[in-house]
């Protein structure tokens, strides 16, 4: 899975905290993502995975802590280099596929329209089709195609496998693996470990807003003599 890698961090999160209505959702999160790796952000529902991802994408404002992307605070330059797939449909359903291709082309210099169109054609999707005429699954695939057609430095995918059938899961994983740019990193959040384990280089376990375990997937498997899925099940046993 590994692509080109060097030691300076792509993303640094330090002492990040966030609470909603007096409930601590992120508790002193410290994290470093390096280039050229696929990270799995693993945790049960409600562990704080989406909150952490939204905070990295400046959609949620932290109570305290710092996030740096390539040693610079988050802003338009980091947004230009981070390709983010949220866990929901974020496109205007009254628009067409072409409208969204135009939107991505005009705002992201690193958007490869040709690649996106090729992937859309492989799914037999017509560019003039309105999003509201598409099934939810197809809307999700379109979003994934738009995101993965960017030559980004960091891809952040929030629960890309949630609620989809096994065939779609394969499509999603293949799309991710074959399209992320050389030297870039991927952060995938999920609680469906078994489907994703094979592609992960590094894992980050998040529980009750705290990072409880991080490390190389190979190292953890060797150390515990178990799969990541088994380690996850033992760590988060109810």
């Amino acid at each position: 899975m590994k692509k080109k890698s060097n030691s300076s961090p792509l993303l640094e999160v330090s002492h990040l905290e966030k609470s909603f209505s007096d409930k601590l959702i992120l508790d002193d999160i410290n994290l470093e993502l390096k280039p050229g790796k696929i990270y799995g952000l693993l945790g049960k529902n409600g562990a704080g995975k989406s909150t952490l991802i939204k905070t990295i994408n400046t959609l949620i404002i932290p109570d305290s802590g710092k996030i740096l992307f390539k040693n610079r605070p988050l802003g338009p330059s980091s947004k230009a280099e981070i390709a983010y797939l949220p866990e929901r449909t974020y496109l205007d359903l009254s628009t067409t596929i072409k409208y969204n291709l135009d939107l991505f082309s005009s705002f992201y210099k690193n958007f490869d329209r040709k690649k996106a169109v090729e992937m859309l054609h492989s799914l037999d999707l017509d560019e003039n089709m309105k999003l509201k005429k598409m099934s939810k699954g197809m809307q999700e695939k379109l979003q994934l195609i738009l995101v993965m057609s960017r030559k980004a430095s960091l891809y952040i995918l929030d629960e890309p496998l949630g609620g989809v059938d096994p065939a779609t899961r394969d499509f999603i994983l293949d799309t991710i693996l074959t399209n992320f740019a050389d030297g870039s990193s991927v952060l995938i959040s999920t609680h469906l470990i078994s489907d994703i384990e094979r592609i992960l280089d590094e894992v980050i376990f998040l529980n009750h807003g705290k990072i409880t375990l991080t490390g190389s997937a190979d190292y953890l498997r060797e150390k515990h003599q178990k799969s990541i899925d088994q380690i996850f099940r033992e760590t988060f046993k109810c």
Partner: protein
Amino acid sequence: MLTKLLKLNFLWVNKFALYFGGGALILGLASRLTTDLTSVVGIIIHNTLQSLAISAVIGLVANVLARSFVHFKNTLIRDEAYLHRTLPVEPSVHWNTHTLSFFFSMLICLVAVLGVLALLFLKGEVWETIKTLLESHVSTIVFLLLTLIFEVTTLGLSVFSATILGRRTHKHRNLATGLYAIVFYLGAQILLLGLAFILSQLFPSFANIFNATSDMPFLDVVKNFQNFFILSGIFYALYSIALYFLGKRSLEKGVDVE
């Protein structure tokens, strides 16, 4: 980036404006053409067309207002915020886009409203009065138009700023948004009336606005309101500027999505 976003925003907000505005103008024109019909059926047709033209123009303003507020919340707080707020632009660009889009949309609405009203009512005695007003009270008319433009801008910026400030509170965010909007908008009206009252105590000529009666000639009423329109035009412009910076600063500080 501002131009690109502004174009997207403006087109979304005004998606149905052409239907409402065009419909209102056609109905207004048809009503005008049927003015001289004297038969009962003719009068019914004329009055129906007039009512429909007025309904269409109200629909135009209501639709543009509603779509502006919905789009603001959708793209900065709700689902579409996940796309818009991760575009490589500063938060101030989003704020400026919505503000400018609202301002220009409302300007177009004002032109459409005035156009339809002119088609419906600009004739005979009304036309003579307007001509006299244009000859002797141009500045009053200019300040009346400025008052209208900036009063509507105040409404828009009250809702935009309230949406951001309400969302920044820790609890009861929807309630806070509603309260902020009421306080900002009603606050402007109360402040303006208070100012007018204070000025009327200081300057006797300003007190005329409180002395105008319904039996006074129209031009005298306009004359009495001249100073008030100057005050209100300037007041709403300054109030809009204050709300603009308040909302912009709050958005730059950051706001959580839903």
